[in-house]
């Protein structure tokens, strides 16, 4: 039922979503920690910027990225000066765009988890002469585990469901930027509804299973939740 092209799109989507999830956990953890602990006046600004992709239409985000990453844009010029390849229409470009797009879906559950832990356990650990790194590895990380699970699942799922951004900066290159959502759109636009149904069905089942996992084994109490049990 699924063509070789469809399978290629599925493979690419999974590759993209795993890469992005890994990067997001690395990038999102320090941001979430800072947001959860800081008393800086910048807290509101940073929090709002991180949350922007939830509100902005993906096409707006994609359009800005197309301009920013393009040869006339600041990021594009920086990349060119570094002697690297141009980002739009490439897999690395898509990874970068997806990290921006899915950032709040990772930062917010982590931030909630860190806030739910509170300062007390860390203070106790500090009195036992645990170094900041010890406190992070042996206190924060284990207590925030459900938050990490939620963050990873949401980040992964949200990247799989990404469409508007890919539409704007993807360029439909097979094996590089033609992900599942794009392929479904192509089928629909080409009036090939049978193929669209096949692939859309796969995505529907997949999304349901991911959410089922989130709500049952993930340990998350709510969508954004992920505090310690």
């Amino acid at each position, binding site marked *: 039922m699924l063509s070789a092209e469809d399978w290629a799109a599925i493979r690419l989507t999974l590759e993209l979503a795993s890469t992005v999830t890994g990067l997001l956990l690395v990038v999102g953890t320090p941001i979430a920690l800072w947001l959860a602990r800081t008393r800086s006046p910048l807290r509101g600004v940073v929090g709002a910027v991180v949350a922007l992709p939830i509100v902005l239409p993906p096409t707006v985000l994609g359009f800005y990225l197309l301009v920013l*990453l393009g040869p006339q844009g600041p990021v594009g010029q920086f990349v060119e000066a570094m002697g690297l390849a141009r980002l739009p229409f490439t897999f690395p470009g898509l990874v970068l765009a997806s990290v921006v797009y899915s950032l709040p879906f990772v930062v917010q559950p982590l931030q909630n988890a860190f806030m739910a832990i509170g300062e007390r356990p860390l203070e106790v650990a500090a009195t036992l002469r645990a170094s900041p790194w010890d406190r992070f590895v042996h206190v924060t990380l284990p207590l925030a585990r459900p938050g990490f699970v939620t963050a990873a699942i949401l980040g992964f799922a949200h990247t799989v469901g990404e469409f508007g951004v890919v539409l704007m900066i993807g360029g439909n290159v097979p094996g590089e930027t033609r992900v599942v959502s794009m392929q479904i759109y*192509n089928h629909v*636009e*080409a009036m090939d509804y049978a193929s669209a149904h096949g692939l859309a069905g796969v995505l529907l089942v997949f999304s349901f299973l991911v959410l089922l996992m989130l709500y049952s084994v993930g340990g998350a109490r709510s969508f954004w939740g992920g505090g310690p049990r």
Partner: protein
Amino acid sequence: MTASFHRLAILVSCMGAVFPARADEISVAVAANFTAPMQKIAADFEKASGHKVQLIFGSTGKFYAQIKAGAPFLLLLAADDETPARLLREGEGVPGSSFTYAIGKLVLWSPKPGYVDDAGAVLRSGRFERLSMANPRLAPYGLAASETLKALGLSDALQARIVMGESITQAFQFVASGNAELGFVAYSQVHKDGQRIEGSYWLVPSRHYTPIRQDAVILKKGQGVPAVEALAAYLRSRSAVTVIRSYGYEI
């Protein structure tokens, strides 16, 4: 009472003389590539006829899906001739009502002056990273672009450099933003208000690709609506044809 009624009746019939038909508001689905000329044509038509025209711009593939789902469009100006034919076959159009309102022309365009020569030799130069075009599966201009590459024997050589927009509008956007150095776009897109825009282009010889016929068809919901028939006729009038040509289409 009767007298005043008569006077009203006379008034109404006088108004009928000014506005030949009842002033209807009609919804027309228009292919995105025909946006600019259609806005002008519709404004002229409204002035001349007193009808109101609501234009909805979008991709022909989406319009097809929406029409099948009962969208309230009365007239479709498609980007191809296949979709109107298919709608007619499926009983969604008024038989015999379809006609070609414009024939699109393909150009290879770059916003940089002097970049594209007038023989398209730049395609063989290999000095560009990205060549933009519309997806051949979705857009007639994309199909024309891929036929052109095939005719030039360049399909395989350039495969890895091609980026595809979902529509000709997006193919244009990729080039205009500088992310692709050049691209196959519609001749109508390198016109603005009847003037050619900046950059360099090669008007691809029509022998390289199947003519891009853009057909219109009156939809079932528009059957017998005078304003729809008037607009369909107006599209073929001399003044509309002048506008259509000034935007880089043939007809």
